[in-house]
């Protein structure tokens, strides 16, 4: 399909694909098996300027937007979603800063994100606040010159590996969501430590840890925007980042589709390759249709985000929900086509199936986002526009 990419976007996609095939493919099974953080690959991505893609030019980035980021994530994810999410999480950890940070804050942190010298991470989820982000318990108490943080963040991608953290905490417990604020934290700040590394079903190359704050002092200069804006900033950040999860889902599905076609062509049963069987042909055709439809939606939404549209909550949720469901279905079918072999770790499709699952869960569970879409439908009908 022709998506009318610019020359620069074709270059970004081509280079991301090259990195994926030359650097990630040879080690992906090992990274998955050992649950090892892919530092070597992060270095290669940094050297190739991939972390510059989503950073504005004023801060040593290349000034690309949500779409450029999606192109990279999709290509990396086509080979290994665990690596892709480690890269994408650095973007997620920078978005609030890019959107709401002061000139001084951006100058201080973004160049190191752009060069890939430091990874970033975003911390919202807590043991008692998953889908219900209004149930946050981590607090920031105002003291002279800054704030004292106490509490625990859970399931934080790039936790422990990243140097820069965007953390959402309550500066005013009495106000609920309106009392939330966003802070930039740096690894190594006194009182800021990490909990255990989680063992996961999929995306096992990525690191997921708890962040623990015990009387952790954060200077006033590290508050992003104003006090009480944290919840709104979070919603904006996630609206911007969700197409990225969509592209991750599309990438995994594409990888699984390609693997399934290759296998169906060479596996002979009943005297014919599997791909000669109508049942298999139907499956592959449906997979191809779904992947292309998901890609078209993700690209269209990413372009909407980059167009400067004011509100794209609904579109962004649609791209993520649809692509994630497609990814789960396509990877499951790929395993089915591989049969017994697909269930074995010697082949890549069982990993893809495990990797796909998370896209239906994180950055807003698909059920939550369907609720968001429905709410928009209701609102719009109410306004009769």
């Amino acid at each position: 399909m022709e998506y009318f990419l610019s020359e620069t976007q074709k270059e970004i996609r081509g280079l991301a694909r090259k990195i994926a095939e030359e650097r990630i493919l040879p080690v992906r099974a090992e990274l998955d098996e050992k649950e090892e953080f892919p530092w070597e690959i992060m270095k290669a991505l940094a050297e190739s300027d991939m972390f510059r893609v989503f950073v504005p030019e004023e801060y040593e980035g290349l000034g690309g937007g949500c779409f450029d980021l999606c192109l990279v994530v999709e290509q990396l994810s086509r080979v290994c979603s665990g690596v892709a999410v480690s890269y994408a999480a650095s973007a997620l950890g920078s978005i609030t800063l890019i959107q709401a940070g002061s000139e001084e804050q951006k100058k201080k942190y973004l160049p190191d994100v752009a060069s890939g010298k430091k990874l970033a991470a975003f911390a919202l989820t807590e043991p008692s606040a998953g889908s219900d982000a209004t149930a946050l318990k981590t607090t920031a108490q105002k003291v002279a010159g800054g704030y004292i943080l106490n509490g625990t963040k859970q399931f934080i991608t790039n936790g422990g590996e990243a140097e820069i953290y965007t953390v959402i905490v309550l500066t005013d417990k009495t106000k609920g969501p309106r009392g939330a604020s966003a802070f930039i934290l740096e690894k190594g700040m006194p009182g800021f430590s990490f909990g255990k590394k989680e063992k996961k079903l999929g995306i096992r190359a990525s690191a997921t840890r708890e962040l623990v704050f015990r009387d952790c002092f954060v200077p006033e200069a590290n508050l992003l925007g104003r006090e009480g804006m944290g919840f709104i900033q979070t919603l904006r950040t996630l609206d911007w980042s969700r197409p990225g999860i969509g592209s991750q889902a599309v990438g995994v599905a594409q990888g699984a589709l390609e693997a399934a076609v290759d296998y169906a062509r060479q596996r002979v049963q009943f005297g014919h390759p599997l791909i000669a069987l109508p049942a298999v042909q139907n499956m592959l055709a449906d997979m191809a249709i779904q992947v292309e439809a998901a890609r078209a939606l993700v690209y269209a939404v990413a372009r909407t985000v980059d167009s400067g549209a004011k509100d794209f909550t609904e579109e962004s949720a649609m791209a993520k929900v649809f692509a994630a469901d497609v990814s789960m279905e396509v990877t499951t079918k790929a395993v089915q086509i591989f049969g017994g072999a697909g269930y074995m770790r010697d082949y890549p499709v069982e990993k893809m199936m495990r990797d796909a699952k998370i896209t239906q869960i994180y950055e807003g569970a698909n059920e939550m986002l369907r609720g968001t879409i429905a709410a928009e439908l209701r609102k719009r009908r109410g306004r009769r526009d």
Partner: protein
Amino acid sequence: MNIIVCIKQVPGTTQVKIDPQTNSLVRQGTKNIINPFDSYALEEGVHLKERFGGKVTALSMGPPQAEEILREAIACGADQAFLVSDRLLGGSDTLATSYTLSRAIRKIADFDLVICGRQTADGDTGQVGPELAETMGLPFVAYVNKIEEVGAGQIRLQRMVEDGYEVIETSLPAMISVVKEINVPRLPSLRGLARAKSAAVIVWTAADIEADMSRIGLNGSATKVIKIFFPNRERRGEKLQGCMEEQVETLVQKLRESRVV
């Protein structure tokens, strides 16, 4: 530290076909790439520049299309690129090639170190490096697997020899050839690709480098390739008859006849 890296454009596959009619390589349908061994030379040059400052110049001799790999070299960190390209250079053997490159290097003039790969993936001779150093009167260290130290006007290197390693010190300017153990070549960067697009690859003719016309191209070549061919590999089979003793005897006899034993 100013470095010149010599790179060659080669067909991007290890399964090159030979046209049986013309006895030449079939280059159609194969993408051209930087000779893999030269990519280690380029990486080492860029790495040295990052450590010690200076600039990296990529140099190639070849047809006009070789400009592509020079742009790729810029995308991977080279600062400038020169291509020596002229119909008069056609048919150059290693001697004529090394002479031509030496003229280009004399014209670039400003360098401390020349780096090349140990050999090319198409010609496979491994001669151009040492011949080039000889032509230029530069100290030459082949098969370098590690650059240990760079001091004022000198360099310490480790090179691979058959049964181990040698540590060698030499004065600068010098020339080295590198082996693949020396580094992992980086991929291009997005900023490098943007630079490569707008960068000027300067093309020199034989006249531009003031080459002695009797020493370039076919005229300057001491060797000529008369024929390239795949060795004729015939398989023959024969089933031996008789009892075990007879079969063994016939087999031994046949092995002796064919001088295998």
